[in-house]
């Protein structure tokens, strides 16, 4: 399986660390809503099909990526920095052509 890191290009899955379900929302740090905390820590979407998930390119640039990947076929339909574009992402294109 290859994930196309917006910075590093396509890399083997061995370079990445899976950080799971990307739909979870961390409650406000001071929140006392324990249902929300529990859901954040323990409950996961686990769809058969497209899944919105977080990966870290731990064996590369170490950026965290939001990846939409099909859990039935392993096909990846989108990859983006979780943090948003760093300004350097678009610059990948220059080399893709080379």
């Amino acid at each position: 399986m290859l994930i196309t890191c917006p910075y590093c290009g396509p890399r083997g899955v061995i370079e990445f660390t899976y950080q799971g379900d990307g739909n979870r929302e961390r409650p406000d740090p001071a929140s006392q809503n324990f249902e929300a905390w529990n859901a954040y820590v323990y409950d996961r979407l686990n769809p058969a099909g497209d899944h919105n998930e977080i990966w870290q390119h731990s064996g590369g640039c170490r950026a965290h990526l939001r990846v939409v990947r099909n859990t039935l076929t392993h096909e990846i339909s989108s990859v983006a920095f979780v943090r948003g574009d760093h300004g350097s992402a678009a610059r990948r294109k220059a080399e893709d052509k080379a």
Partner: protein
Amino acid sequence: MMAEYSAFSLLANALKGNKDWKPAWRKPDPKASYDVIIIGGGGHGLATAYYLAKEHGITNVAVLEKSWLGSGNVGRNTTAVRSNYLLPANTRFYEHSMKLWEGLSHELNYNVMFSQRGCLNLAHTPAQFDDYARRGNAMRHLGVDAELMTPAEIKRLIPALDISSDARFPVVGGLMQRRAGTARHDAVAWGYARGADRRGVDIIENCEVTGFLRDGDRVTGVTTSRGDIRARKVAVAVAGSTGRVMQLAGIATMPIESHVLQAFVTESLKPFIDTVVTFGMGHFYMSQSDKGGLVYGGDIDGYNSYAQRGNLPIVDEVMSEMLALFPGLARVRMLRSWGGVCDMSMDGSPIITAGPLPGMYLNCGWCYGGFKATPASGWTFAWTIAKDEPHEFNAPFTLDRFHRGLVIDDKGQGANPRLH
């Protein structure tokens, strides 16, 4: 009633050219309603049906299997059976399973080839050896067999193992459970299926559940590819497919992730290793099948997947760890690899409970330890379904334990399923 299997029946049939053997289980069409529907014709679902009939006299039961019987993890695992856990809740449960295993071939009149050849966990540092001692002592304090082995004893048991001190991770000792071992995985599914069938359970293959029939919150049956089927109780035992099936019931999130686990077998070899062995400085386990193939595996691939298909990094990792222990196997060849879908829970322990909806019963979260649990899982799940309350053995394995902070985390990894 079908014939008992025995050496005599084999001989008698052989003399008749094996023409009189009957199907191991019937192929009935689904009825309109049952007392209990069990979704999932894998080991756990079939065992549940068997024990419902045998222990609780509930025989108006259907097991619904979307594909062929035993097509899930019961037919895709590395066949190890053991009860060498650290935490008491797990040890008690798996030890109950072990006891059921010990009588299973007789009970089912089906040889599941349960071979108590032992399971050895290798330790590679003194600290790890102490960890295993802690675990072994925990087992002993619950009446479960466990012993420590020295490198010399280990070498006698497994001559091909590299115990040299210049190994990258030398073996300093190991934890052995002698009563652990292996069983023939498919036979477990077939044996339970035949046993349940003989007690009147309908096993319905190629019948995919497509939705739940509801009366308000209450689950009253299922819709399937072979029509609607009603039931007073609907039990879910679908392991890797838990997420999908619960979504059909409108439950979107669960403390479960489905991950792919690969397993491997070599070409057939003359007896090479007489026990189940695990590596302590990574994740590798191996035994040898009666046919002679070395059956082995390692970690899950580490991402959500329903594909029953893994990728190369784990293949490479598992083989590397294998050769770290058995350098003589470099020229032996991997014959086949396959993948199973594991229902990884948030603490590495299972869920066997009534609910979460009225009329529904849930059995999941087996991570990759489900095969050895098969008898106890079916036994306690049947109890829970029949009595609407858990047995002492599955009482800790609730669904709400995560939220309450009552996790049973044998590996201490927290809510990180890929690490359990």
